[in-house]
Every structure is written in C-alpha cells, then in structure tokens.
C-alpha cells in the first residue's frame, strides 16, 4: 500500500470521491481516470497538434490571420520530391527497426529467459547508448570511421564508404535505438516466463519449437510495441540522416522539414503539411500493430503466484557473454571513446598523440561554471519532471485504453500515437503558435514550462507503449477478483495493476528521462530567451567550431544522465523497499 500511495498527484479528488460515494466508487474511478487522461492528453498533445493542423490549412496563422486557407496544400503535396522522400523515410524506418530487432531480440531473449551473469550490469550498459544523444553518437562515428579518423589512426584503415551509405546510417541509428527493443522484449519475456513453454515441452515440443510457437508469440505485444517505437523514432530523427544521408543523396521528410523551417522565407505551412504526412506514416504502422495484437489473448499474468525460474545458459555462456560484450562495445564503448578522445584533444588536427592530450576542455567547462552548471541543472530537472509527468499520464492513458470500455478510448490511443512521428521541430512550432497568442492571460511560453510541455509531448508515446504492452498481459480475472472483495477501481489500479506494470513503466520513465535531458531540436526553437539546456549548450560549441569543448560537455552529461536515474532508483528502493522495480 505504502509503495503506491499518491503515485499520482492528481489522485486527490478521486480518493475523496470514492470515499463519499462507495457505491459509485467503481464508476468514479473509471471516469476520473478517463478525465485525467483526456485533459492531460489534450493539453500536452491536442493543443500543439491542433495548431499544426491549423497552420497547414491557414498559411498566415502565425500572424494571427486566417486568410487564404488551403493555399499551401497543393504546392507541397504535389512537390515531385515528396513521394521519393516519403519512400526513403519508410525505408529508413523499416531498416532501422529490422537492424535494431536483429541486435535487440536475441539479447532480450537471453536476458529475459536465462541466467545471464552480471545481468544488472549489462542492463546498465545497454542503457548507455540511450544516454548518448544521437547527433553526438553520429559525430563520434564520423570522427572514428572517416578517412584519417580515429580508426585509421589506430588500425590503419577506415570505413567511410560503409558509414556514408544507407546501411551505415541504419547501423548507427539502430545502435542508438535497439535498447528500446532490448528492454521492452526482455521485460515482456520475463513476465511470460518459461512456464508456458515448459508445458509445450511436456507435450513433446523441441526447445526451439516451444520458443517459436509459444514464448515468442506470447511476447508479441512487447515486441510489436518496441518495433513501433523504433520505427517512429527512426522516421522522426533529424541529426543522423542530416549528417550521413546527405552524403548518400538520401533525403528524408524530416531533413526537408528542417530545411523549410530554416530557409528564408520560412515555410511553416509546408513544414506542417510534411509533418502531417509523417504522422500518417506512423499512424499506419500503429494500425498494423493494432491488427497484429487484436483478436488474440496475451494474458499470461494470472492470479497464481509464479517464481521467476530462469534457465542456466550452460555451454552457451561464453558465446552469449561475448555477444553482449560486442554489442555493448559497439553501442556504448566506441562512441564514448570517440567523444572522450575528442574532448581530450587540444586540436582536432593534432590527432591521437600524447602531446595533443589536454584537460583544457574540461577545465573551461569548469571555468564557465555558471553557464554549464545552469544548463546541466535545467536539463536534469526537466528530465526528471518529464519522466514523472509523462510516465504517470502515459500509464493512466494506457489503462483507460486497454482496461476500460470507455467511449473515446480509441481517440485517446490515437492522441498518444500522434507525437510518435511529429518531429521535435514541428512540435516546437505548434507550441509557439498555441501558447504565444496575445489574448492568453497566462502562458508557459518564454518560461521553462514550455520545454516541459514540448518534452512531454514528444516522449509520451514511450510510457504509453510500454505500459500498454504490460497491461495487455495482465489477466482480467485479477481485477475481477479484487472487485469481488470490494476494492474500488482506484484501489485495484494502485494495488494490483500499477505494481504489475511498474517494471515496464519505470524502464520507460528511464528512457524518457534520458531523452528529455538531451533533446536538441525542439529545445533550440522554444527555449526561453537566455536559457540553455545541455543540448543547446553543446550545439553552440559545435557551431562555433569548438568541437572539443562540446564533446567534453557531452561526456559530463552522459555520465550524469546515466548516474542520476540509478541514484533515484536506489533511493526508491531504500524508501519503499520495493525490489520489483528493475
């Protein structure tokens, strides 16, 4: 009880209500959850999205005029380049999802079903690639693999042709995205456990057959949800396609949107229309996922207590550990090395030689104290706040969508999928258009709260997808049993559902924290005047050609964003004595 009390700051009115009218408590719990989810989603997603749609229709919206509706639509939609860019975008998304699955699924299977030595440490290492901002990782890979890069300086050869190609781009992006699949699928598999495949084995199935026919299909919600997330992350990622794709002549929708937004005269309506195209693509993927998951039953968590019985790896132990180590090296080790090597270099042209080694970049961060520290504090607190707000809102929205029969739950589900494909820059524009209206008495615009709104909007899909997958696996009989014993819906949610989805929810909140603490594209546009986040701080250094200084700041940030969530988890464990989390 203690562990979950007050999980939501907005639980107050609900409790009051269920206390006053016991007989109506069930309905009260339901409609309260629906009410919270609907208000939250409308505020966080609905408002900016509405303004993006309006901007697409009314080109003069920014100036407060509704003149010439639909005049930009034809021009943008009949752009001869659009079909090719849309195709490229889908191709890239699929390629990244496939490569991420090839890396993430085997790792997740071993982690979820077998006793992998040092499992917690591997978990931590697999979280690191998520802490490395994609644009930094890409820059690190460029500096490692390009001619005369770090690889050539150390080993005498370079891999530039591979890096600057579609496969290189998919590889770099997948190394950044696969943790989504690793965490999503391994948690699901853990929940599915070995019990069902044991039953299959009893009836004579071979281990492979039992895995393919029973365990893997049962973990489909987790796999489908994480594949969808990866696809959506890939089609809205800007940094990597901009840095690598241009060399390969590979233009995607997001790079074109960026161009329209940063090339005078600014084409906001065109950018909005293209962003809506992206949303449609992601929505298509979402419908596919829904089709795959609907009409089947994935409920594996029933009332019976089950011990998590993981198998030993046996003779596979060494190869499996080598696989884990290889992935950790490629996804975390190599980019970190490039970042640190650059941060410790006096000059880039000096290369990896001893007398080019210096701490000067770290010292100037320390000297800049105030600026760097302010940016770090702001980004870390925004990260924590986003994780909590998006996590709770996401969990409630997922609950309403999966476990209730409320009308409008499909609409809620749709609202949670929209930001999946909205590029950060477009979310930012929607927020400025919405919240900078002169008639608003108070507005979060030009305060740090606008960043919180932006991050929540961009990252809401993470907790929603993760908890939706977890909720799909919880049997309805648990809830029914609790109701029989007189528990209100709110109590059922707090004491039964929430603890059961906690591992998935906490994992997604960690990811939200990591991404929010380093978000660049939206931050650059909506940051209040005079305010810097870590990412915009780093970007300023790059833009001035101080790559070493930017990389030093990036390194400090990666270390901190990795340590902070673990510190919080430790604290939670001490306070709540709740070992179920992670």
């Amino acid at each position: 009880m203690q562990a979950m009390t007050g999980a939501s700051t907005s639980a107050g009115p609900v409790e009051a209500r269920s206390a006053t009218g016991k007989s109506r408590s069930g309905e009260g719990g339901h409609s309260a959850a629906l009410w919270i989810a609907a208000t939250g989603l409308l505020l966080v997603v609905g408002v900016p999205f509405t303004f993006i749609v309006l901007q697409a229709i009314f080109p003069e919206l920014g100036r407060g005029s509704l003149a010439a509706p639909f005049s930009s639509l034809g021009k943008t939609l009949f752009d001869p380049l659009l079909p090719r860019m849309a195709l490229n975008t889908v191709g890239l998304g699929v390629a990244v999802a496939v490569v991420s699955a090839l890396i993430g699924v085997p790792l997740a299977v071993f982690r979820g079903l077998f006793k992998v030595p040092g499992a917690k440490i591997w978990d931590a290492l697999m979280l690191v690639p998520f802490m490395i901002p994609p644009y930094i990782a890409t820059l690190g890979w460029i500096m490692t693999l390009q001619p005369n890069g770090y690889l050539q300086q150390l080993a005498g050869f370079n891999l530039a042709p591979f890096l600057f190609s579609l496969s290189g781009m998919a590889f770099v992006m997948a190394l950044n995205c696969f943790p989504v699949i690793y965490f999503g699928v391994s948690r699901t598999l853990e929940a599915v456990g070995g019990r069902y495949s044991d039953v299959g084995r009893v009836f004579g199935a071979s281990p492979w057959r039992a895995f393919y026919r029973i365990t893997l299909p049962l973990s489909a919600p987790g796999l489908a949800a994480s594949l969808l997330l990866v696809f959506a992350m890939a089609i809205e990622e800007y940094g990597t396609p901009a840095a690598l794709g241009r060399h390969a002549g590979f233009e995607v929708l997001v790079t074109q949107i960026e161009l329209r937004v940063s090339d005078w005269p600014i084409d906001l309506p065109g950018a909005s229309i293209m962003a809506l195209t992206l949303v449609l693509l992601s929505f298509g993927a979402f419908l596919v996922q829904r089709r795959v998951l609907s009409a089947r039953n994935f409920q594996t968590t029933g009332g019976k207590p089950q011990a998590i019985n993981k198998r030993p790896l046996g003779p596979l132990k060494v190869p499996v550990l080598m696989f884990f180590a290889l992935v950790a090296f490629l996804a975390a080790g190599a980019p970190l090395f490039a970042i640190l090597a650059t941060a410790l270099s006096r000059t880039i042209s000096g290369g990896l030689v001893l007398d080019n080694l210096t701490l000067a970049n770290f010292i100037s961060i320390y000297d800049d104290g105030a600026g760097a520290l302010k940016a770090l504090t702001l980004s870390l607190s925004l990260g924590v706040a986003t994780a909590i707000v998006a996590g709770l809102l996401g969990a409630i929205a997922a609950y309403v969508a999966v476990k209730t029969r409320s009308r409008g739950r499909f609409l809620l589900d749709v609202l949670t999928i929209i930001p999946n494909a909205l590029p950060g820059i477009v979310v930012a524009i929607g927020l400025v258009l919405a919240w900078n209206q002169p008639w608003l008495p108070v507005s979060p615009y030009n305060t740090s709260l606008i960043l919180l709104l932006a991050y929540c909007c961009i990252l809401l899909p993470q907790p929603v997808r993760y908890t939706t997958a977890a909720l799909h696996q919880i049997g309805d009989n648990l809830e029914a049993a609790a109701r029989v014993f007189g528990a209100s819906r709110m109590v059922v949610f707090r004491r039964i559902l929430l603890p059961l989805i906690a591992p998935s929810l906490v994992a997604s909140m960690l990811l939200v924290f990591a991404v929010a603490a380093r978000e660049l594209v939206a931050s650059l546009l909506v940051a209040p005047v005079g305010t810097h986040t870590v990412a915009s701080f780093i970007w300023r250094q790059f833009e001035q050609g101080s790559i070493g200084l930017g990389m030093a700041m990036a390194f400090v940030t990666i270390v901190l964003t990795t340590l902070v969530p673990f510190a919080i988890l430790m604290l939670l464990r001490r306070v709540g004595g709740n070992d179920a989390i992670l």
Partner: protein
Amino acid sequence: MMRVSLFAAAAVFGLALSSSTAMADITVYTAGPASLIDDLAAGFTAKTGVKVNVFQATTGKVMARIEAEAANPVVDVLISASWDTATDFAKRGWLVPYTSPNAVNVPDFLKTDTAVAQGVSALAIAWNPKSGTPKPADWSDLAKPEYKDLVNIPDPAQSGSAFELTAALEARSGWKLFDDLKANGAIVAGANAEALNPVLQGAKAAVFGAVDYISLAGMKKGESIDVIFPASGTVIAPRPMMILNWSKQQDDAKHFVDYVLSDEGQAKVAATALMPARTDVKTDRPLIGDLNILKIDTEAVYSKREETLAKFAAIFAK
C-alpha cells in the same frame, strides 16, 4: 512514491520560478557566434544597467521563431548573418529607421536607413596544410586532380553566404566550375561548421567557401588550418542589426545598437575574428580593403534564388 510526487511538484514549481520575462529588459535574437553576443550583452548591461535577454541560434532558426511568434512578437533587436533578412524585413515594413551616431565610420554599403552591420565575415578556402595537398590559390584549383574526393562545399540552401558565393561565381563564369568540382568528387556537406570538421581531422583537404572567422578562430587555437582568400574574388557576408517596429523598448534598443558600434563593442567583434563594421577599428586579420570582393546584383540574384539552388542541387545529386 509519495516523495516522488512531492519531488515532481517541487521540480515543476522550481521550473516555473526559474522563468524570467521582466519587461524592462531588451530581447535580442541573433545568429552566432554565441560568445560574441554574450560578451556584448554583458558589456551593455555593465554600461547601462539594462538587461539583455538573448536568443541565439542559426539565422534559419531565429527566423523560424520570429515567424511563429508573429502574432505576439517579443524581439527588440535582430542580428542576422544574412543581409537578405534586412532587405526583406524592410520591405515588409517591420523595421524602425535609425542611424546610429556611431555609424559614421561604417562604409555606406554596410548600412541602410533601417539596418547597419555589426561585423562582416568573408568566404574563403579553408585548407589543411597537413593534408598532403598543394596550397590552393584559387577556387578553380579545388577542381584539380590533387584534390580528388577531398573537397567539402557548404550547402547554399542552408547558408546564405554560401548561396551568394555560388551565385557570384555562376554569374562570372557559369556552372562549369561546379560541374568540374562534382566530377572531382567534391561533396555538399551541411552548414558551415559541419563542412569544416572533416577538414580538421584530415578526411578532407579543403572547404570551398568556408566562413572565415570560424577557421581563423580555429587557427588561433592551434588547429592545422589555413585561410586563403582567392585573388580572383570572394563574397562577404555583412551581419545586419535591426530594430523591430513592434519593440516597446525602442530607446534601449537604439542604445544597444550604439553600443555594438562603439569602440568597445567593435573591439569585441574584432576579438571573434570577424571584420568590424567600422573601418577605423584596428584588427589583425585581412579586412574588406584587402579582399577582392565579387560584385553581385543582390536584387537579381535573390529573385532567381530557387532556380539557382535547384540547378546547384541537380549538379551535386547526380
């Protein structure tokens, strides 16, 4: 978990408190370099007591923000990296006419009724002496076999000055030079800083049309980079300062422009390796008078901008 919610509430509350939009300050939107505007803002505040709120990004991002904010604009002073902005904003009637008393020594082509240059950058060849290639002297040298696959070109669609260089060279000698560069393996590589980075590490030998002050600053830090201004001519990119007509602090905004053009302000501009707008401020880099500036007919060049960019993209997309 109770503590978590308390923490969340505290975090949100803290964020709300940390926001500041005091109305007596002036708000400056500017293109880079960041250190320059930080310096200028601090200097101005020390002199006048008026606080300066800064939003700094690329010219494109600054413009996007102004466009999205147009219903309720907050910017008082805008410093762009592209003179085109000043022309366009003046046409829209968004600018306050102002001639600073400190602009006497700013040459006529760097000021209009509504805008005046903060500083000036020029485009150059940025070349890595350790690249094992001969030192280039002119743009056309980079199409020679010695530089096969070793040249980066900043994207004219993403950089205003790169566009002007493309237009100026095309007006002088047609597209042949660009066809030759493409045939020689030159690639279009993002905006300015992005194009320079591979040259520093040695993956490429030279940038065709690098913004000079970034490379000069790198040189000061000891990077192996040389900045060559081709004798056959290059383009300059004056950085216009403008006061917006919706500004509620026009007097303070004017004082800010005066400050940037003062001896102290121009010394700060010179310290970032930009050319000062005033001809009477001394600095240790080549100045406008030392360069052969390609004449361009701005009006004509910008009226066929889309056409030029499309042609350029077509050459390098092959």
